[in-house]
């Protein structure tokens, strides 16, 4: 059903799926703000556990792994480089051949990894349990320009279409004798006959799409209506206020800590 649209959305029947997208955005804000206000390992672990429980409730826990994968290389690189070379490094922890890992660098890298995992899992709750079109629609209801809303949903439809033409172009140019393997110069040269048709195609389509939209009153100043009914859950306000309250409590905690 969602084959024609690029998205990480996982359709499931769960409590979390029934929560509105704006409340999930509030959750992201809280999950990013609280460990920032109270930068201890305990708080970071608690936030991470909360996100993990929500992801489990939404039955999408395993789908987080590819998302984390994107940041895995850089996280490993941070662990190695900061563990070895961070300027504040003093206490050696262990030795791996000629390399000495230091405690300060490694504990810094641990804190950093927790922070990043936290952000990724908070965002994962939103992107894995919300249909992008629902998210865009609720943002437009909250005051985002409908034109930008159109642009956003249009991207999600165009990219899969164009990816499908990628293979066609590749085959067409290969059959004309284009080399796609070999030395760097050869491969670099092949880039032009590949990207050229894509760009031309998409710009020509753009022209037609613009005309089609104009004809249908895209620029009309009349307030836009929505295709779907507003997605409202009774708990939205409660969830949002609770999250705001948690952020305020974290701030109070931090200030009390200073006063002591």
């Amino acid at each position, binding site marked *: 059903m969602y084959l024609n649209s690029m998205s990480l959305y996982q359709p499931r029947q769960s409590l979390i799926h029934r929560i509105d997208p704006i409340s999930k955005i509030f959750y992201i804000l809280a999950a990013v703000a609280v460990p920032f206000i109270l930068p201890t390992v305990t708080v970071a672990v608690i936030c991470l556990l909360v996100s993990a429980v929500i992801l489990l409730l939404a039955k999408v826990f395993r789908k987080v792994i590819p*998302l984390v994968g994107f940041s895995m290389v850089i996280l490993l690189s941070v662990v190695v480089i900061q563990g070895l070379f961070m300027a504040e490094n003093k206490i050696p922890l262990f030795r791996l051949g000629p390399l000495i890992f230091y405690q300060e660098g490694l504990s810094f890298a641990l804190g950093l990894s927790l922070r990043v995992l936290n952000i990724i899992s908070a965002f994962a709750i939103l992107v894995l349990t919300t249909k992008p079109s629902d998210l865009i629609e609720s943002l437009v209801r909250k005051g985002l320009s409908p034109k930008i809303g159109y642009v956003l949903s249009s991207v999600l439809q165009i990219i899969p279409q164009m990816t499908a033409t990628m293979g066609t172009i590749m085959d067409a140019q290969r059959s004309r004798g284009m080399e796609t393997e070999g030395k760097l110069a050869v491969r670099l040269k092949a880039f032009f006959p590949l990207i050229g048709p894509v760009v031309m195609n998409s710009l020509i389509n753009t022209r037609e799409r613009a005309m089609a939209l104009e004809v249908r009153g895209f620029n009309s100043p009349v307030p836009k209506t929505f295709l779907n009914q507003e997605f409202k859950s009774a708990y939205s306000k409660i969830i949002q206020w609770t999250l705001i309250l948690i952020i305020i409590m974290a701030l109070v905690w931090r200030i009390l800590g200073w006063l002591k």
Partner: protein
Amino acid sequence: MSKKGMWSLKLTTASLVLIPAAVAINFIGKSFAGVLKLPLWLDAIGTVLASMLAGPIIGALCGAINNIIYGLTMDPISFVYAITSVAIGLAVGIMAYNGWVSSLWKAFFVGIVVALVSAVVSTPINIGFWKGQTGNIWGDALYAILIAHKNPVWLSSFLDEFVVDLPDKIATVMISYGIFKGLPKKLTVLYSNDNKTETL
């Protein structure tokens, strides 16, 4: 060209629909670079092209929307780097408007400026998030050498980003320039906001 056109916030339908196309071009550029195993990302061709065609505002919007879409569909961290993409769109748009995309050499220079802008904007984000690292092997190797020799984090981080950005952004801008020059006038007049052409 009259100066007031560049920052016009009145977006025409044609330039708005250019945004999804540009984001898709970014995506396809990156995929082709991957398929051909090029040591470059080439993931901003669409943004650069849109900035050349329709100015800094559309360029910046393309950059922002590009990263929002990446954030929603692949890597949540890319939301934060929207600022870098916006800066790239603005830089190319402003330079293009002032006549800097008229020859290949000028495009080369624009590439250097874009690399600088991108590195300057990304460095604080890299420091905030990754203590200055980028995850790119070559850049991070340089970073490790610099840090091991007690150089400040901001300098090591800036160079880490810049050595990776420089070839990538020069290639991106020059490829976009090549495509831009090859576009038929029929298409380019649609987006130019110099107040001299009719809109749809």
